[in-house]
């Protein structure tokens, strides 16, 4: 029932595709972090227009399926005159989507830093920019780390959707093999294991980093 030959034949193709998955996860995750940081800063900035803009962005991203966002981005970019490389379009859509959730995570992280510290920093004479870069952001990042790691696993789990814009990442690669070989188990079980391993690597890496940050402060 399990075709070992097919499995062994598929492994190199799937391994290549796994690298695409990892690259897509990293690029989307980085875009998401950037978008989320900007949007969180906008929400905490106290400028009403920026706050409303950020709210609309978060609401739109959370309120529509990523699947649909991917298609809107990949069909919308050419209309804006941008030639849409499928990988970049997918990374942009996944990253923007993740940015909405990162916004909430970072916002909560910044708000978790006791207000007294900000007052103390201001009393010592630190400029607002320094307060952000030296006091608030490092702590907010440390507080948010577990949630950000969980968010990165969700980004990983969103990458198969890139197949709808024809990025040959791990899942789509599996679909292609399966449609040729008419057999699913040899392909999709290793793919499932691959995702689970990458996700575990992300979570363990974050835990390790968390430990290092905690030790650095102790």
């Amino acid at each position, binding site marked *: 029932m399990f075709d070992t030959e097919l499995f062994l034949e598929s492994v190199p193709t799937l391994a290549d595709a796994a690298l695409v998955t990892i690259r897509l996860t990293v690029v989307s995750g980085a875009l998401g972090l950037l978008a989320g940081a900007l949007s969180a800063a906008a929400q905490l900035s106290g400028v009403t227009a920026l706050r409303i803009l950020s709210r609309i962005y978060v609401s739109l991203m*959370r309120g529509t399926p990523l699947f*649909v966002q991917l*298609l809107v981005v990949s069909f919308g970019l050419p209309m804006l005159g941008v030639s849409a490389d499928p990988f970049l379009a997918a990374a942009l859509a996944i990253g923007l989507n993740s940015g909405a959730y990162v916004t909430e995570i970072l916002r909560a992280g910044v708000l978790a830093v006791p207000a007294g510290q900000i007052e103390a920093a201001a009393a010592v004479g630190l400029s607002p920019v320094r307060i952000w870069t030296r006091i608030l952001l490092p702590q907010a990042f440390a507080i948010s780390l577990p949630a950000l790691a969980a968010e990165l696993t969700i980004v990983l789990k969103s990458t198969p959707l890139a197949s709808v814009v024809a990025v040959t990442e791990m899942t789509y690669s599996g679909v292609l093999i399966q449609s040729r070989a008419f*057999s699913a188990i040899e392909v999709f079980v290793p793919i499932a294991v691959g995702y*689970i391993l990458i996700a575990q690597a992300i979570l363990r890496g974050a835990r390790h980093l968390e430990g290092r940050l905690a030790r650095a402060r102790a």
Partner: protein
Amino acid sequence: MDWTVLLPHIPRLMDGLLITLWVTVLGTLASVAGALLLAGAAASPFGPVRGIVRVYTEIILGLPILVLLYLIYFVAPDLGLRLDEISAGVLTLTLYYSPYMAEAIRGAVGSIPPGQIDAARMVGMPGLSIARRIVAPQVLGLVIPPLTGLMIGLAKDTAILSVISVQEFAYRTKQVVSRTYAPFEVWTFVAVVYWMLLSAFETLMRGAEGRALRFRESR
């Protein structure tokens, strides 16, 4: 851009939307039931039962829902489990969302101070009464926000079922796109419909949360 091309296809899209709603409702009910089961099993006195729940949760935490759908729709038949598209879709949503919802329930139950339970035990209340009269009424309000987020996620993930030809909203949309050759207009329209419905749902749930936790208002 020409938005009028959409008009003749609205009924077809709405048919798809009804299927999306139906699958969402089925998936939510089944996931909540599964979550209660998992949350109960996670509190089991038997180590192996807790272990199975933990491993299952870890697996789902790393598994894309699309891959889970392929496993159930393409791989499970090889192992003797043959399901029609809608059942496979609902099963996927259930298996995927139950552990997340179980975590939400566990979090809410865990946030009730143990002293409240001690106080109930000291009055002589049996475990079932404590669960029903002390824990449940509070948990009901506390799980609404995380559960709302997950239900919205579930509703959005029904779009994935289009890949196995469930004739839901996204699937019908693809059909309309292939007839109108106006992908941007059609997908944008669909995005707006999703957004309005899900935003309305979120507002509704926020109201429900406010009512359920009214006892917490200090003024």
